[in-house]
């Protein structure tokens, strides 16, 4: 397969924001709907950090009082991903809520099988938002697809009065209100907004590390206007999240020509048609990253991307492909920089591609770290503890 070479560095190009944003401002539309008595807006709690989005508008990122809308794929198959997000909050001394009154957004299934419809999808979203509102904590979305889908739901609710009516009736049956948050916030935006505080607590030197970045499609392509951009990162031609965090931690972020390509997840494909996911992930992403940038790891910020980029490398190795690139989420890298345990917190044993060389490059002894984890687990096996708790890993 032929890849176009990187002919000029994206970092050198200049980007000017358009004077008139090409999209409607959802803030104004939500405000109007609230004035008309149609919806309740859950406002971003103080304190918040202001960032700029693709078309130069301000987005508020809450610092704390966050209601963590968890991800099926992260919690189910890469649980160190969400654990690292919670760990960061705890280490920074921030108030957060990990709710049980939360369902999946169900969008993975919707994009895979279409066995749902706009009414159901909006009702699931608003049920979760209303639950967050009832607690007083502000929703922060862990999954890139949940984030993308909830933006779609917000857009549909803004534009279709009949959909609002239907959802309002459904919520009334459940004893809930039609609540839409002032901002739909992805956890990686929170990590980005908190990067200075994370840097202050960095204890692991990462200045000799090179990483590539894969931005998730449903973060920056699906309803693109919510995504964070800044002239300091790739001249605002690419989203600033992940890269902004890694650069703050001293990591060299290397460019590669297929950065815009998706990971190959495909929703339906990763579950029942994985030959496509494997081929795309390896041939269009992993091999290109290794050939062009030779990084120590690749970092992304979504459930499907970590899964596909990581798990696809096993079969590719058997075919002699150029693979073996560790795949981590930005929350895991940030936690690692702050001294989190690679197995007790990052839970790297749930990842597939060998990451021990990367840990060794950071000055850690992977065998020693694994032995520490096993020692903790032994207490569960001998019955002296039922669960490990935060006190066991902090």
């Amino acid at each position, binding site marked *: 397969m032929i890849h176009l070479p990187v002919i000029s560095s994206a970092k050198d190009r200049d980007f000017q924001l358009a004077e008139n944003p090409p999209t409607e401002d959802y803030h104004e539309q939500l405000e109007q709907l609230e004035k008309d008595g149609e919806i309740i807006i859950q406002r971003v709690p103080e304190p918040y950090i202001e960032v700029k989005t693709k078309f130069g508008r301000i987005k508020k990122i809450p610092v704390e009082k966050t209601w963590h809308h968890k991800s099926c794929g992260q919690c189910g198959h890469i649980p160190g991903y969400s654990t690292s997000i919670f760990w960061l909050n705890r280490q920074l001394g921030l108030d957060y809520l990990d709710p049980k009154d939360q369902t999946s957004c169900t969008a993975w299934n919707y994009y895979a099988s279409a066995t749902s419809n706009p009414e159901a999808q909006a009702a699931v979203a608003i049920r979760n938002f209303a639950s967050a509102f009832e607690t007083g904590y502000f929703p922060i979305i862990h999954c890139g697809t949940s984030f993308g889908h909830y933006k779609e739901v917000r857009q549909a609710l803004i534009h279709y009065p009949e959909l609002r009516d239907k959802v309002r009736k459904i919520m009334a049956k459940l004893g809930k209100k039609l609540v839409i948050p002032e901002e739909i916030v992805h956890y990686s935006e929170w990590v980005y907004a908190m990067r200075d505080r994370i840097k202050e607590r960095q204890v692991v030197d990462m200045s000799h590390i090179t990483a590539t970045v894969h931005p998730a499609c449903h973060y920056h*392509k699906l309803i693109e206007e919510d995504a964070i951009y800044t002239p300091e990162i790739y001249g605002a031609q690419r989203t600033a999240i992940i890269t902004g965090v890694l650069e703050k931690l001293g990591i060299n972020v290397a460019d590669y020509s297929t950065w815009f390509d998706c990971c190959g997840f495909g929703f339906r494909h990763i579950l029942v048609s994985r030959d*496509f996911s494997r081929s795309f992930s390896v041939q269009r992403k992993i091999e290109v990253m290794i050939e062009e940038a030779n990084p120590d790891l690749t970092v992304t910020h979504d459930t499907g991307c970590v899964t596909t980029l990581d798990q696809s490398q096993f079969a590719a190795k058997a075919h002699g492909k150029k693979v073996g690139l560790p795949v981590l989420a930005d929350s895991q890298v940030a936690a690692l920089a702050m001294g989190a345990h690679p197995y007790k917190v990052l839970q790297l044993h749930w990842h597939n591609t060998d990451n021990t060389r990367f840990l060794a490059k950071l000055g850690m002894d992977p065998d020693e770290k694994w032995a520490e984890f096993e020692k903790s687990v032994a207490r569960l096996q001998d019955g002296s503890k039922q669960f490990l708790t935060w006190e066991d890993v902090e």
Partner: protein
Amino acid sequence: MMALDLSYNKYADVSLDEKERLLEEVKADMRYQDHALYGCYECGICVAACPSARFYDFSPRVIAQAAAREDADLVYTLMNDSIWDCSQCFSCDRCPRHNSPGMLITIMREVAVRNGLGTAKAALEGYGRIIYKIMSTGTQVSPDMLQPNAFPDWGGHVHEIAENLDIWRRALPPETLHTTETGWEISDKTIIELYLIWHMTGVMDMIQEIDEGLYDILVDVMEERLEEAGYDDVSF
């Protein structure tokens, strides 16, 4: 790569009336006119950005064109033989005409499912366990789905996870993550509310259309819990 047959011969036995009825159902979707399709420059940017176009005989441009021309024959062919190849990544949203072929395909898939097309059933063959999981438990994938026979191409590490599943889940510090059958612990009240949403929005009817057996299982599971929660009648 299997070539896509666009000759109109493959579905000649299906009447034009039926094909036009399905096209009208696509066009009647509220998202169709407002956000999915405005026209097409034929520039091919959507195809260049599309992952599926690289590995299948698949083109978001052809789908957008067929819909824009209201070519019921071609839309029917694509609705059967092409739309399930889409990755739903929405890379095609970079269309300079502001089309969303990805959204158009979402709508076409919904129509295919609602009408029980045989090709939709075939595309979702083997996927029923996922629908069951998300609809009955509220999380799409669960730790106990990591079994070597389900993911043989992910290697021995899946076997290791399956062997240590219970203990590794209990080693997770967040207390909501100690589950093995769901991604996280979900309260009973939350699940009941989800079941009510499925019933109130016609999703159960869609499942019945696409997979009668799965529908029966879901009804059994839901009925019991809904009755326990005091919902004897869910015909809203």
